[in-house]
């Protein structure tokens, strides 16, 4: 695994990730330059104006022009970061959802301490879910009487997606607030009970990674770890076929 992770940002397998990474590294560049500038000035000042025999403090405050320029340029940099980077990225991520027709739709239902992943199956339609049916053998409460439910795939902690295809995820939680974090996709979104939150992403590399929980959700928060695999389209189709429920099986058995 360590080929994907180390010091610095994790491996990026997302089409949206590069822009975010550029922003993060860019800001750190700016911060570094500003800080080194400050620090150099500070150290120089401390040495030059140290108390010593014969040295006198100046009552009249020296008026600098530079701070005004510094202030203005900091403000301009912030405007640039907002308008040039953060706003457009957020607009892309939040508002420019891919066309549903060409996308794979998935429901993710978080619970203490697992990720329940719900695929609509071959018919492309999610079966109805009911809260009163939720239980350990039916984690999302799929209603067996709904014909659309028959081919649905429900997994626990197993998120599989195809590469180069937009994915639309609807995220919610059964119990407390969790946060759905795919480090390699630069995706993180709180899962809030009572809210169904849409998000989208598109992978551009294949591999086996992780889902993490980023919001304290109880004593098992640290082990709310899921597997996340990005397949080629062929492998993904095969995975779907292998995990499709047997035609007559009434209760949907979760694949673990």
């Amino acid at each position: 695994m360590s080929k994907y992770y180390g010091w610095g940002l994790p491996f990026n397998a997302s089409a949206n990730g590069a822009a975010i990474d550029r922003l993060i590294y860019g800001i750190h560049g700016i911060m570094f330059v500003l800080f080194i500038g400050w620090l150099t000035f500070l150290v120089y000042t401390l040495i030059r104006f140290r108390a010593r025999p014969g040295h006198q403090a100046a009552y009249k405050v020296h008026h600098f022009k530079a701070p005004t320029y510094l202030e203005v340029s900091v403000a301009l940099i912030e405007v640039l970061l907002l308008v040039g980077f953060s706003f457009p990225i957020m607009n892309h991520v939040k508002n420019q959802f891919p066309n549903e027709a060409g996308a794979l739709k998935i429901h993710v239902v978080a619970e203490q301490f697992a990720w329940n992943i719900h695929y609509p199956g071959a018919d492309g339609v999610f079966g109805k879910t009911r809260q009163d049916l939720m239980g350990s053998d039916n984690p999302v409460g799929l209603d067996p009487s709904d014909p659309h439910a028959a081919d649905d795939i429900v997994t626990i902690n197993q998120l599989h997606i195809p590469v180069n295809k937009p994915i639309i995820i609807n995220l919610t939680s059964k119990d407390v607030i969790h946060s759905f974090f795919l480090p390699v996709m630069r995706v993180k979104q709180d899962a809030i009970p009572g809210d169904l939150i849409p998000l989208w992403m598109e992978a551009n590399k294949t591999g086996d990674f992780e889902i993490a929980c980023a919001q304290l959700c109880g004593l098992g928060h640290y082990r709310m770890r899921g597997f996340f695999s990005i397949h080629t389209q062929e492998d993904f189709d095969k995975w779907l076929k292998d995990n499709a429920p047997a035609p007559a099986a009434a209760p949907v058995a979760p694949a673990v």
Partner: protein
Amino acid sequence: MNHASHAHPLPFWRKYIFSMDHKVIGVQYAVTSLLFLFFGFGLISLLRWQLAFPSQPVPFIGQFFNDTQMVGGIMLPEFYNQLGAMHGTIMVFLGVVPLAVGGFGNYLVPLQVGAPDMAFPKLNMMSYWVYFIGGIVMLCSFFVPAGAAQSGWTSYPPLSDVAPLGQTVWLIGMVFLITSSLLGSVNFIVTIVQLRAQGLTFFKMPFFVWAQFVTSFLLLLAFPPLEAASVMQLMDRLAGTSFFLPSGLVVGGQPLAHTGGGNPLLWQHLFWFLAHPEVYVLILPALGIVAEIIANNTRKPIYGYKVMVFATIFLGFMSFVVWAHHMFLTNMGTSMSSFFQITTMIISIPSVVILTALILSLWGGSIRFNTPMLFAVAFLPMFGIGGLTGLPLGLTASDIHLHDTYYVIGHFHYVVAPGTIFALFAGIYFWFPKVTGRKLSEFLGKLHFWPSFIFINGIFMPMFILGLAGVSRRLYSPEYAHAQAVQPLNVFISYCAWGLGLAQIPFILNFVISLFAGKKVDSNPWESTTLEWQTTSPPPHENFEHEPVVLHGPYEYSVPGQKKDFLPQNMREN
């Protein structure tokens, strides 16, 4: 004021325990909160064992814990979460705020404005005792069944609504602490507005008083929403309401019996509406302390005093419109997030102004490097790191990856630990002679400063790397692959944390020894200009023999043509 007290000396318990003298109350606050700071630090030092050496028994001290906390010396996740949540709560509400405001503010504000006491001495006494009860309640929460609060210092529902009993105790404790702060803030505002000595116009007040003034408004306006929210959460837990519980919750496989219809995000809005201004409550008094010490030890006026005052006021206003930048990932719309990104960027400007002014204040000075000054100078770059690293967190796009990781922990600790805590230490070294008439040892002071400076950076700098790598906060054990990759850093951080603990030994020794055997000094050992130094050390009851009349601004150092290089605020030019 109370002239009877001169004639009849008060009994011991009225003079030192239930005292109404702001100086005694200030010392009570300072000592209590210092003890809480060390306790809160102890909690996190214990927690750091688990992070460095996951699920290995804690050597030696492991045996003293019961089996809901540790089993065979191995820390349980429940207990780990208690340590984290209580560390945060104790550091913020029982440590830093009471020390900065209750301790330094109480002791110094009446002296610096030339008043005989606070405006409402009884209220002042009450605010200390309400704080004290709140603290005891918080401590007791460790001993209730299933232990103390474990839902983070932020206590997000629904988790906190369904958490064990400790959360109820936490909420009751919070109600006391909030009430105490409210009582205190009213007192400060009235004292500063009403009791300034003759001639002390607002723009002749020391910057420290300004900082306390703005801080008090923040406390006064920000705490009531949290008080309301805490009571609502209590009702959710005890009275069957569901302010923060939406319909249809299934917890542990069982539908939760509750009415539903609530919203967990309501808590977050109320909480952060307090907790963001709270950040400025943690740093403004620190900036005030640093400004006083820098002016004194550069022997020159501070740079841009008025600009700093206006920046502080502006900061105070803005701190009420940035709260939702803690909630970027709760699925707010882009127009909402844009608004909060913009306000967050705007609030950084006055912060940069204040920090720049403090750095430029050094220019042209004749800088003495005594212990208070070392802490004050070290504050500047470290506080700067804290401020700068807020930038990527304030932009939603970069916050997606960094939110709720160790990057956040690194960022705000640089603000409050290498930042505020260093300023508070600076203040203790600086004003100790005023309170006791004795000086802390310079040698032990430097032995405290240098290791602390090194270790504290060793703790918090690597946290940025952990955060960039994606390691979440509040993780009991680094199970994730991306956490494994940076685990050696956790070991390093823990050693530095324990080193920081050891580095406090010279401070404790210094404090205790100097109390009894420190070098005796006269009333103004740092040759300072502000009013608290123009009376005896310690100051008498009612502070000044004669009410001072203020003639000058607060930082008249190295005035040309004067015999000495400082001109006290109430002294005529010669």
